[in-house]
C-alpha cells in the first residue's frame, strides 16, 4: 500500500467485532484524492460495516483511521460530516414536508447577519447552485415529498456537494435508476473527480464499476482480498473468483434423500408491483431449496408474499396443491413457518421468556379449546429444549442472552410446535459461529429427512451449495436460473446473481 501525498483517507489495521463474530479483520484501505474507488464483495463481506465506521455510526474495535495524513477518531455521524465525509445511503433520508433547499442545508441553514432568521435569498441561491452542479432541475422551493427516487438521490448529492465534502460514499447508487439517469450520474462523478473529490463507490454492477472506477477493492469475509487498478482486471471471471474463492464447507455434509415427496409449496406467476415479478417455484417434501441472489434481489420480499405478511397483486400460492389465502394467520394454521432474517426484532419477543417464545405460534394448535395447561406446556418446551440442545439454564429467562445459534434454535422450536410442514428460513446462520452453524444444519437436515420442506434464503454461497437440493437464483425480482446442486458452483451462482454479461 503506497502512502503518497495524494492519499486523503487511510484505514490501517481496522477490525470490528460484534458479539460472536468478527465483521472486519485487519483492513488496510486507502483512498486517493480525486479517485473513484469501488468496493465490492458479497453480502456480508463487510462493506457496510466499513462504511458505517467511516460515517461514525460506530467505532472500530482495532486499528486507526488517517484523514489527510492525520490520525482521527470519528465518534458520531456529526463528526463524520464535519470532517467532510458525506454518505449517501440506499435509504434516502430527506424530510418530506420542508423545501428541497432546506433539506440540502439541514443543520447548516444560512442566516442573516444579526437576526436569527433564515436568509432565504442565500438559501435558495446556494441550493440552486448545488442543484445545478449535480444536474438536477428541481425547484429548490418545492417540498421534498413529490420527488422521484432518482431526483431524491440527486438532492442528496447536492447536499454532499454543498458541504464541499472531499469524500463522498455512494451505497448502490444505481440500483433504482434508469439508463439515462445512470449516464447523468457518471457525468456528475467525473465532474467531481476533476474537482478533487474522492468517491467510494459500492455496487454489485461490475460493468458500471469498470466504466467509472479507478481502483477496485475486493472484500471477502471481512478481509481485503486484493486492491487493484481497473486496468489490471483481466475479465469478469477474474473479479468473481476473487470475490468467491473460498473453501467449501467441510464441517458438515447432508444426507440427501433420493426420493423427494409431494410438492408442498408452489407459486405461480407471483407478482408484487415493482418488487417481484412472475415468480414460479416449487418445493417438495424432503428437500431444501436454496434461494440465492444479492441483497435487494427480492428474496425476502418473495417469501413475505408467500407467508402472507405482504400482499401480492397477481399470481397464486399453492400449499399441498390448494390455493391458500395469504395472511400470516392462515399460513401458520396451514403449516408454514417463517424464520425471519432479523431474529432480535422479528423473530423473538425479547421481553418474553424463552418458554413463551417457543409456544407463541403453536398455542392454538396445542390447546384447541383455548385453555392452557402449564404441565403440558412445560413438557413440550422441555422436550424441544432437549432435542434441539438449546443451551440455557432456564426457559424462564429472556432470549436476549442466548447466543445467535441458540436464538435460532428457539425459533425453530417455535415452528416445531405448530407441526409446520414448510419452513422458510431467511439467512438461517447469519451471525452464528461455526460450531452452532453445524448444529443448525443438522437440524435442517433432520427436518427434511422427516418429511418437511425447507425454502432457504441465503447469501452465503458455500451454505447454499452445501445444503440445497435445488437452487433458484433471483435477480431484480425475478428468478433468473434454476439449478440442481450437482450443476452449481460458487462462480456460477454469483454470475447469475449479478447478471454479468446479460445486460
Amino acid at each position, binding site marked *: 500500500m503506497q502512502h503518497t501525498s495524494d492519499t486523503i483517507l487511510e484505514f490501517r489495521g481496522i477490525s470490528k467485532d460484534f458479539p460472536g463474530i468478527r465483521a472486519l479483520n485487519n483492513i488496510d484501505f486507502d483512498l486517493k484524492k480525486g479517485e473513484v474507488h469501488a468496493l465490492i464483495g458479497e453480502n456480508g463481506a463487510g462493506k457496510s460495516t466499513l462504511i458505517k465506521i467511516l460515517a461514525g455510526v460506530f467505532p472500530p474495535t482495532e486499528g486507526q483511521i488517517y484523514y489527510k495524513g492525520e490520525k482521527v477518531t470519528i465518534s458520531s455521524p456529526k463528526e463524520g460530516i464535519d470532517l467532510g465525509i458525506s454518505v449517501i445511503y440506499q435509504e434516502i433520508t430527506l424530510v418530506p414536508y420542508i423545501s428541497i433547499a432546506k433539506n440540502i442545508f439541514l443543520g447548516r441553514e444560512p442566516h442573516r447577519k444579526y437576526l436569527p432568521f433564515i436568509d432565504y435569498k442565500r438559501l435558495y441561491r446556494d441550493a440552486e447552485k448545488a442543484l445545478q452542479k449535480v444536474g438536477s432541475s428541481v425547484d429548490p422551493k418545492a417540498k421534498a415529498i413529490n420527488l422521484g427516487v432518482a431526483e431524491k438521490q440527486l438532492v442528496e448529492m447536492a447536499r454532499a456537494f454543498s458541504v464541499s465534502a472531499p469524500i463522498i460514499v455512494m451505497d448502490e447508487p444505481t440500483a433504482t435508476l434508469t439508463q439515462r439517469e445512470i449516464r447523468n450520474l457518471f457525468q456528475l462523478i467525473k465532474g467531481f473527480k476533476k474537482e478533487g473529490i474522492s468517491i467510494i463507490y459500492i455496487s454489485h454492477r461490475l460493468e458500471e464499476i469498470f466504466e467509472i472506477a479507478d481502483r477496485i477493492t475486493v472484500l471477502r469475509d471481512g478481509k481485503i482480498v486484493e486492491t487493484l487498478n481497473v486496468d489490471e482486471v483481466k475479465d469478469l471471471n477474474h473479479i468473481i473468483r476473487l470475490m468467491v474463492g473460498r473453501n467449501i464447507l467441510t464441517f458438515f455434509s447432508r444426507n440427501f434423500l433420493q426420493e423427494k415427496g409431494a410438492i408442498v409449496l408452489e407459486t405461480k406467476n407471483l407478482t408484487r408491483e415493482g418488487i417481484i415479478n412472475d415468480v414460479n417455484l416449487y418445493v417438495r417434501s424432503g428437500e431444501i431449496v436454496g434461494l440465492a441472489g444479492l441483497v435487494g434481489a427480492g428474496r425476502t420480499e418473495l417469501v413475505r408474499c408467500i*407467508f402472507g*405478511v405482504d400482499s401480492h397483486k397477481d399470481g397464486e400460492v399453492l400449499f399441498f396443491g390448494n390455493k391458500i389465502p395469504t395472511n*400470516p*394467520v392462515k*399460513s*401458520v*394454521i396451514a403449516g408454514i413457518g*417463517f424464520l*425471519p432474517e432479523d431474529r432480535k*426484532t*422479528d*423473530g*423473538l*419477543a*425479547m*421481553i*418474553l*421468556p424463552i418458554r*413463551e417464545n417457543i*409456544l*407463541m*405460534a403453536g*398455542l*392454538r394448535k396445542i*390447546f384447541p379449546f*383455548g*385453555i*392452557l395447561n*402449564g404441565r403440558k406446556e412445560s413438557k413440550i418446551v422441555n422436550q424441544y429444549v432437549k432435542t434441539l440442545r438449546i443451551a440455557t439454564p432456564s426457559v*424462564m*429467562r*429472556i432470549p*436476549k442472552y442466548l447466543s445467535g445459534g441458540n436464538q435460532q434454535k428457539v425459533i425453530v422450536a*417455535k415452528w416445531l410446535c*405448530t407441526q409446520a410442514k414448510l419452513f422458510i428460513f431467511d439467512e438461517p446462520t447469519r451471525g452464528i459461529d461455526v460450531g452452532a452453524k453445524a448444529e443448525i444444519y443438522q437440524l435442517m437436515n433432520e427436518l427434511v429427512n422427516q418429511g418437511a420442506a425447507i425454502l432457504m434464503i441465503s447469501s452465503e454461497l458455500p451454505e447454499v451449495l452445501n445444503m440445497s437440493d435445488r437452487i433458484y437464483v433471483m435477480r431484480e425480482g425475478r428468478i433468473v436460473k434454476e439449478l440442481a446442486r450437482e450443476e452449481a458452483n460458487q462462480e456460477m451462482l454469483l454470475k447469475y446473481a449479478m447478471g454479468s454479461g446479460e445486460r
Partner: protein
Amino acid sequence: MNRYAPIIMRLGIVLGIGVFLTIVRPEFLTMNNLINVARQSSLLFLVSVGLTITILGAGIDLSFGSVLTLSACILGTLLKTDSFFLAILAGLAVGACCGFVNGALVAFIGLPPFMATYGMLWIAQGLAIMFTKSEIIYGFPDNFRIFGVGYLIGIPVPIIIAIILFGVLYFMLIHTVLGRHIYSVGANLQVARLSGIPVKRTQIITYTLSGFLSACAGIVYVSRMNAVEPAIGDSLLLPALGAVAIGGVSLFGGEGGIGNTFMGAIIMSFVINGMNLIGMTSNWQSFTIGAMVVFSVLIDQLRAEKFQTL
C-alpha cells in the same frame, strides 16, 4: 427473570408504608380503617383492570372513566323503571360497545390508541350527560344495592367482586390462549403477527373487554353511592393510571399482570389513606397522585433503557 419478583417487591413496599403509617398515625391499624382501605383498594382495582389489559397489549384506554360513567347513567336510568336485569344488561352492553368502537378504531383504522380513546372519552362523557340531562338519579332498589354496600359472609361485596374479577382475569391472562396472545401483541406486535397470532382480533377483544370491565365497575359504583351523576368518572383516570404504573405494569406492553395492578391499587390506597390521616387536603392529593404517575413511568422507562444497554 422471576415473574413474581416485582410483585414481591411491592408487597414489601406495602408493608413498609403500612409500618410507617402505623408509627405516624396509629389509627391506621384499626379494623375500621383497614376495612376502609381494603374497600378503597378493591374499588380502585375494579376500575383499573380494564386499563391494565389494554396497557398489557401495548395500548391504552383513556376513556374508561367516561365509559364507566355512560354505562352507569344508562344503568341508573333503567333501574328506576324497575327492570333490574335489563338495566344491568344494558349497562354492560353499552360498556362493551364503547370498547368495541375503540378496538375497531385501533385495529382497523390504525389510530394510535391514546388518540382513539381520548376522543371516546369526550364522546362518552357527552353522551352520558345528554342521557341524564345533567340530573342526578338516586334511590335504587334494595336488591341492587347489594353490589355496593352488601356483605357476603361478612365481607363487603365490592371486595368479593374484586376477588372474583381478579381470579377470572388472572385465569384469562395466564391460562388461556387469548391471554398469551395479548401479552405477545404487547411484547412485540410484529413478532406476534409473524407468528400467526390474529393481532387485529386480539386488539378488538382487548378493548371490548376493557369497556365491559369499566361497566362492571360502574355497577359497583352506582350501587355504593346509590346515585348516578355524570361526574363519576372524572377523577378516576389518574388514580387508575397510578395504580397500574406503580404496580409495575410496563406502559410499553407485554410486562406485568393483574397482580401488579392489585399491588398498585393497594399502594395507592395506602398512600391516599395516609394522606387523609395526615389531614392532607384532597387537592394536594390530586397533585401527589399526578406526581406519582409521572415518576413511576419515569422509573419504568429508566429500567427499560438500562435493560437495553445491558
